């Protein structure tokens, strides 16, 4: 039998709340430690216990680690999803299942491996009976390890990390892993082609989730205040602040240079954050779509009163409560124009876990420099899943606290200053900070109409002047937001514009489009709104620009239409959302569906057909996504 090495996908079907995430993360980390590029995506229900949940792992020697819409290896532990899990195995694939599940198995095109999980755990006298289900998950890790040649030493390293070096749980779990492996060695015959072989492609990398990275980044950005309200998938961002602040901002006197407040709701969370930002603190809140809806009124106030705050939106699918545990890029247009009246937001768009860290600290510099709310749009896939990442790097520039006048500055100006005066011509005024003891240092902040000296006014001309300045400030913002990442290909005929967590899927789709269809593409990953001059140049250069995003309506494309009306006909929306992390397949098929050949040259039709034949499900999906992306 041919071996397929370091190029396959694994799906584990378990019950929510059964403790399988430890086992699944262990598999992920063990493969990572073997030096093989890997990703893991937790596809879980909004439920505490009992509903089916899946974990998908993509192993790829070439570094294409976007989620794959196929499962070469399936591990079925949950009777409720057993039939579905069995049906999902790719032909020629492998199916591992807990042998206490007595359900018919009629497939003959795959390798079938029963696993006596319950009896193995029962036979270990060191496992207390109430730990059997938890530890039982480790048996499938062991069986899998044996069958695909996963290194048990790296499994042990993963467990040691997970249990923070505590010997008792490490031993209990590792014994179950070893028991599973030993049982498989003695009883199972390898009948599938999938195998791991150690590489050196993850050397120097770390594994982390985006919410943790964002929290750590914020701490290196000097965060002083955070207010938040629990919401999936953002909660772990604020919780990570609580985990890491005491470590990273520890002082000899035991006192704190920060405060994290759990608010009564998201209205109050942003309200407190705005209060803190106004009083001179680096202030942040983190939420997801439903919470952002509640924050809308304060976002408008912060924009109009020019209060620096950072708002993280770890996106999930809406509208309304939507699918609370599924990923999305559906909050973009809402955030871009958040609030009633005229407004436009400064938005940062991290594309991976490292950028969650980087924008964690940069967002404060930008917010304080511009004196405006900065929204950072992450998503569930980045926020909650473990990603490979380059190590976090110390900020390469000093903190930028923006334009602040303290007592001596006000004294030098002899009190002649105005909160909303545009002194420097960049539309950014100077502010003073509560606590300033200069008798002429204070001002009165309001969400009502105000003049250059922050006095109440309903004067039309003053209103217009102020709003025009705010519009100019958005132009100034272009100097401060992160530039996009451009990946050019020689001979490219199309451009791809995307943002956020879709990058891995796009890189893989680009590779396939080139190799199988002869379509070469340039790829620009947007990292901020407003758009910088690099984006202008990219759009001017390409006749066909595919805007790839995870939402129904093509929200980035809508914004591009309004920003670049003269190039509106160049944009082709490849927008798709089903709540699952981006996959190369829908990106590629979405692009093919709208691709116009240059000079009558068609994409390589033969190969497309051949591909569709090999994966019958693919053809239906072509139609589906073509229908969705008109």
């Amino acid at each position: 039998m041919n071996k397929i090495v370091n190029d396959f996908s694994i799906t584990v079907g378990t019950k929510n709340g059964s403790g399988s995430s430890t086992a699944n993360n262990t598999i992920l980390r063990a493969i990572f430690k073997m030096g093989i590029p890997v990703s893991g995506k937790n596809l879980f229900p909004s439920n505490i216990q009992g509903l089916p949940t899946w974990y998908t792992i993509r192993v790829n020697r070439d570094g294409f680690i976007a989620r794959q819409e196929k499962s070469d290896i399936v591990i079925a532990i949950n009777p409720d999803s057993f039939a579905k899990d069995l049906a999902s195995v790719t032909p020629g694939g492998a199916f591992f299942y807990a042998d206490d599940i007595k359900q018919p198995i009629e497939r003959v095109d795959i390798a079938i491996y029963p696993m006596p999980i319950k009896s193995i755990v029962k036979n270990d006298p060191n496992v207390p009976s109430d730990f059997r289900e938890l530890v039982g998950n480790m048996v499938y890790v062991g069986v899998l390890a044996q069958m695909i040649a996963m290194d048990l030493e790296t499994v042990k390293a993963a467990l040691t990390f997970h249990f923070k070096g505590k010997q008792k749980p490490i031993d209990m779990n590792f014994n179950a892993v070893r028991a599973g492996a030993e049982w498989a060695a003695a009883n199972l015959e390898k009948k599938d082609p999938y195998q791991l072989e150690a590489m050196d492609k993850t050397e120097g990398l770390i594994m982390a989730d985006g919410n943790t990275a964002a929290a750590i980044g914020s701490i290196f950005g000097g965060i002083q205040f955070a207010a938040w309200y629990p919401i999936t998938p953002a909660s772990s961002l604020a919780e990570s602040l609580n985990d890491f602040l005491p470590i990273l901002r520890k002082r000899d006197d035991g006192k704190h240079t920060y405060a994290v407040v759990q608010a009564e709701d998201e209205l109050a969370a942003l309200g407190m954050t705005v209060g803190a930002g106004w009083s001179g603190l680096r202030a942040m809140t983190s939420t997801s779509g439903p919470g952002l809806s509640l924050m809308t009124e304060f976002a408008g106030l912060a924009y109009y009163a020019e209060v620096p705050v950072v708002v993280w939106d770890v996106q999930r699918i809406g509208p309304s409560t939507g699918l609370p545990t599924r990923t999305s890029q559906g909050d973009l247009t809402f955030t871009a124009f958040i609030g009633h009246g005229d407004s436009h937001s400064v938005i940062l768009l991290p594309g991976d876990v490292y950028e969650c860290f980087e924008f964690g600290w940069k967002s404060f510099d930008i917010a304080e420099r511009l004196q405006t709310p900065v929204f950072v749009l992450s998503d569930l896939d980045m926020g909650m899943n473990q990603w490979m990442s380059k190590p976090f790097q110390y900020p390469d520039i000093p903190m930028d606290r923006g334009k602040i006048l303290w007592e001596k500055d006000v004294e030098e100006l002899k009190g002649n200053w105005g909160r909303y005066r545009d002194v420097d011509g960049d539309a950014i005024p100077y502010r003073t900070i509560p606590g300033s003891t200069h008798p002429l240092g204070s001002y009165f902040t309001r969400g009502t109409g105000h003049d250059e000296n922050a006095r109440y006014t309903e004067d039309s001309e003053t209103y217009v002047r102020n709003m025009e300045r705010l519009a100019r400030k958005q132009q100034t913002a272009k100097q401060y937001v992160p530039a996009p990442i451009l990946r050019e290909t020689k001979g490219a005929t199309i451009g791809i514009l995307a943002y956020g967590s879709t990058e891995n899927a796009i890189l893989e789709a680009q590779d396939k489009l080139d190799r199988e269809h002869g379509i070469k593409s340039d790829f620009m990953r947007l990292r901020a709104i407003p758009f910088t001059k690099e984006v202008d140049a990219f759009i001017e250069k390409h006749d066909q620009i595919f805007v790839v995003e995870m939402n129904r309506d093509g929200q980035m494309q809508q914004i591009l239409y309004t920003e670049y009306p003269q190039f509106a006909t160049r944009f082709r929306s490849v927008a798709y959302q089903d709540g699952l992390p981006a996959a190369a397949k829908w990106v590629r098929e979405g692009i093919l569906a709208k691709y116009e050949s240059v000079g009558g040259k068609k994409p390589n039709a033969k190969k497309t057909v051949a591909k569709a034949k090999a994966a019958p499900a693919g053809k239906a999906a072509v139609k589906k996504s073509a229908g969705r992306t008109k």
Partner: protein
Amino acid sequence: MTETLPMAGAPANVNAVGLTKNDYRGFPSTLCQGCGHNSISNQIIAAMYEMSVLPESVIKFSGIGCSSKSPTYFMNRSFGFNSLHGRMPSIATGALFGDTRMKGIGVSGDGDTASIGMGQFKHVMRRNVNLVYIIENNGVYGLTKGQFSATAEKGLQLKKQGENPYMPVDICMEGLISNATFVARSFAGNPKQVKELLKAAFAHKGIAVLDIISPCVTFNNQENAYHSYAWGKDHEEPLHEISYIAPRSEIMLEQEMMEGEIREVDMHDGSTVILKNLEKGYDPTNRYQALHALEEAQQNNWLLTGLIYVNTHKPSLTDIYNLVDTPLNRLTDAELRPDRAMIDKVNELMF
């Protein structure tokens, strides 16, 4: 301290920090002539002047409504934040972390607090934010021209609105139930009491709820209305005569008041609030008695005024957080950004 007392020969109208009453004024009021809110603003000015509070050490907060406009009408030298309808508490909660040496004075209304802001009102109580929370309570929405508010009594008749069919919210009761550490009620038509309660509230560490019945001369001042001058004057039932005694000058009191009827409350800053009981045995440190008094007043249709409840032993929100002595908003970059070496430590903590 002697050095902060006015020097011999200094103008008589200068207080201990060298300021005149004018230094505590704001812009001219744009509220209606005779509005109870103006009288409250004047008492804030008087109280702050008499207490020799530096205006720069106060932050003014408000929400939206007639009441919330009033921070413009006092203490121009203080920072102020006129925020969103019903959201003053959250703004104040965050802002008061900036420099914990500062004290908040918040002015809200009955709509701002008891309707749209009820949630934030309750939570700012339980957090014990260091804020004087004044509710200028008139039972009516003024800026939108006279709709019922949530504190309007059942059966109140208003032009255009007809009869109020709902039971009212009792702000003091809500404050008490939410574990506020200072709850008082007063009547704008009793300026002396308003001023003394303001002083006591300002000296209190933590949240101080001050529900001040403040008649709306335009929309709700009929003689039989609970929130009117006439009704208030007829039905006011003061619990005690209240005097605020500044820190370190607790001298003459005992001569003035008779032993046995006097309750003294020592405030955190060393000042004392002296309550001369009118009703025998009322103890404002007894929460059970306070709830009882409020319930009794409601049953008997009394406008119960005075210091209803006080607890000086609870830490304020910012106390709980064990913050550094330097105000957070004056910390240097070096104190905020971890050392370079910490980045390696963090990477080691990742897998």
